[in-house]
């Protein structure tokens, strides 16, 4: 077991990618992802990591290069943020449809316009329907653990899907935190060598990316949907193995003081730790408040969500990206849909918070809980509000 040392989260992310012995990295610089790929290029330059580092001319080419690399049978990594994700989005759909186990760290950042380099979840929400597995980190240790987990899940022959590890830009990516890096033997024990199921090989020629006529397109998409849904069992299994080996536990939906809670906050990402502080404070005041936080965004953990929230009378669901003019933000859409399908009807209020780097404070969570309590008591209509927006 490695020692707990203070290091920047992006550096730790790059270090664990290096420990995973990736073969090819293709990346283009964008704030706040830059420190991850800078450090990877240093690891390659110094001979600590034997990999091809390809400094491509755009994020579109970054993902295209990753597709070529993964199809040729190499362990492949990239990283991006925001506009960079938007530019590569076309190819992200193709990467998952071609069942290529690429791992990508996304330092989450708001989308333009106005241009804004700070954190929210607009980029990862754009990736929602691409067929990528998406996990979400709340602190630096989790970034390291989830990247290691991502390679194992992606390359599992029962899965063969790309995995996006989300970490909040700046509020996670640029923080110096105490982190335990695994040593090489531990990584090798957890992560077997990548054995591609199919690869571009002249000794066994295959056609990758053929035309799908109407007669086969629907079946191809159905098969892909099944693959994404079925990946959840492997994701959970890999977390259980991780806990056995490293002692740190991960679940698709995690909870904090939620057992007897009448009101639940529901969050995703690094604000979850702030929400825990808020829960502690409100509990000290005698309020029955708890927290459910999503670790897994895709495949969406519907059953686990229901288990986590079924006892609550009211939910304050926090979204960090807008679905402009929709009924609520993307996380809340999934929550409401999941509950409706099962005949559950708690009082749900949606709070759009932390957009473009705006801080979300303990007091903000207290206000959300108070508003949900008030709405439930008075029978106010459910809906969404954009928190702390000046008129």
């Amino acid at each position, binding site marked *: 077991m490695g020692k707990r040392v203070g290091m920047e989260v992006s550096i730790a992310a790059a270090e664990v990618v290096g420990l995973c012995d990736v073969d090819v990295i293709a990346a283009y610089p964008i704030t706040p992802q830059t420190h991850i790929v800078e450090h990877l290029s240093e690891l390659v330059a110094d001979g600590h990591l034997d990999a091809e580092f390809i400094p491509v001319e755009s994020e*579109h080419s970054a993902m*295209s290069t990753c597709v070529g690399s993964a199809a040729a049978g190499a362990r492949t990594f990239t990283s991006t943020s925001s506009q960079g994700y938007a530019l590569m989005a076309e*190819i992200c759909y193709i990467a998952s449809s071609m069942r290529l186990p690429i791992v990508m760290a996304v330092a989450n950042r708001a989308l333009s316009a106005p241009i804004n380099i700070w954190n929210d979840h607009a980029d990862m929400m754009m990736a929602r329907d691409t067929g990528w597995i998406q996990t979400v980190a709340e602190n630096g240790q989790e970034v390291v653990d989830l990247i290691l987990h991502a390679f194992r899940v992606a390359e599992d022959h029962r899965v063969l899907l790309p995995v996006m590890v989300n970490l909040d830009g700046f509020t996670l990516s640029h923080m110096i935190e105490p982190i335990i890096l695994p040593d090489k033997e531990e990584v090798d024990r957890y992560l077997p060598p990548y054995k591609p199921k199919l690869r571009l090989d*002249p000794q066994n020629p295959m056609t990758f990316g053929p*035309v799908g006529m109407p007669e086969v397109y629907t079946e191809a998409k159905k098969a892909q949907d099944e693959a994404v849904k079925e990946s959840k069992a492997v994701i959970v299994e890999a977390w259980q193995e991780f806990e056995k080996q490293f002692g740190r536990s991960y679940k698709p939906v995690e909870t904090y003081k939620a057992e007897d809670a009448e009101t639940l906050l529901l969050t995703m990402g690094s604000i979850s730790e702030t929400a825990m502080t808020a829960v502690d404070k409100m509990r000290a005041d005698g309020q029955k408040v708890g927290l459910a936080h999503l670790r897994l965004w895709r495949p969406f953990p519907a059953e686990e969500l229901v288990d986590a929230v079924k006892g609550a009378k009211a939910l304050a669901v926090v979204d960090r990206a807008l679905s402009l003019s929709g009924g609520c933000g993307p996380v809340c859409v999934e929550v409401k849909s999941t509950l409706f399908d099962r005949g559950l009807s708690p009082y749900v209020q949606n709070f759009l918070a932390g957009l473009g780097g705006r801080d979300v404070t303990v007091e903000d969570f207290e206000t959300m809980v108070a508003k949900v309590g008030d709405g439930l008591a008075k029978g106010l209509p459910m809906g969404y509000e954009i928190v702390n927006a000046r008129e």
Partner: protein
Amino acid sequence: MGIAAEALKDFKGFHPKKLPEREPLSPGHRACQGCGEVLALRQVMKALGENVVVASATGCMEIISSPFPQTAWRVPWIHVAFENAAAVISGVESAYRALNRKGKINQPDVVFLAYGGDGGTADIGLQSLSGALERGHNFLYVCLDNEAYMNTGIQRSSSTPYGAMTTTSPPGKKSIGQRTWKKNVAHIAAAHGIPYVATASPAYALDLMNKVKKAAAVPGPAYIHIYSPCPTGWRHGTDLAIEVARMAVLTKVFPLYEVIDGKWILSRKVTKPKPVSEYLKLQRRFRHLTEKEIEAIQKRVDEEYEQLLAMCSLGAEPAEGEESS
């Protein structure tokens, strides 16, 4: 001696009676009757053989060769999107480089080919092509230039010649057809300072195949721009693709040359060129042009050919003798 010249110093071309019999791109694909593009691609693949990985841009050659569950490809082939064949092959080539170095595979001699049409090369794919050429990957990029977006129904590209009729450059009372002169992607490729650039034509099959063989032998990036007649889009007879392609060379419209380590070499000097009108009249995409417009095209063709001659070692002997009408 430059790296390309060094790699080619013992180069042996194909013998016309001993061409490879194997067809890595098999017959039975769905190309139009008389397609000059698929003929050019067939010649490329015959020259490359079977120890190759191919990345295809979206376009005619992709759609006609890979309708699931069928494939015309006897070699590993990948299609991802329209604008990124050069980036995809960058990833494949890098993966092979890493896996060979790390002892995970032992396949050091695989050749990497990316190809696209003129839309996928001169327009939407120009950035990813430039990036891959600049980074120095060991691969060959082939542009199969049929001078418009044929797969989507004959829309103009930046590679469509001046005056040509397409569905988005229609001639009319206020239009002569395509208003702009053809973008010269071979020159753009050469400006990257890569070891090998060439133009080629399926009407000169041996020349084409030898250039492909050279491009594969040269370490680093290589680019070949291949003139690819399209009977459907150019409105000429399905038996005329080779004649049109040959006429393009004999009228100096599409000169054949190589750029080896930055040195420009004419493949065939056209000493007694035919008038451009002989080329234009074979194709109904030009039939609306007036004599005045044809004169302007002739003038441009003559000027560009003179510029090319000036670049080609200032009067040095052409590589394979003279071509005259």
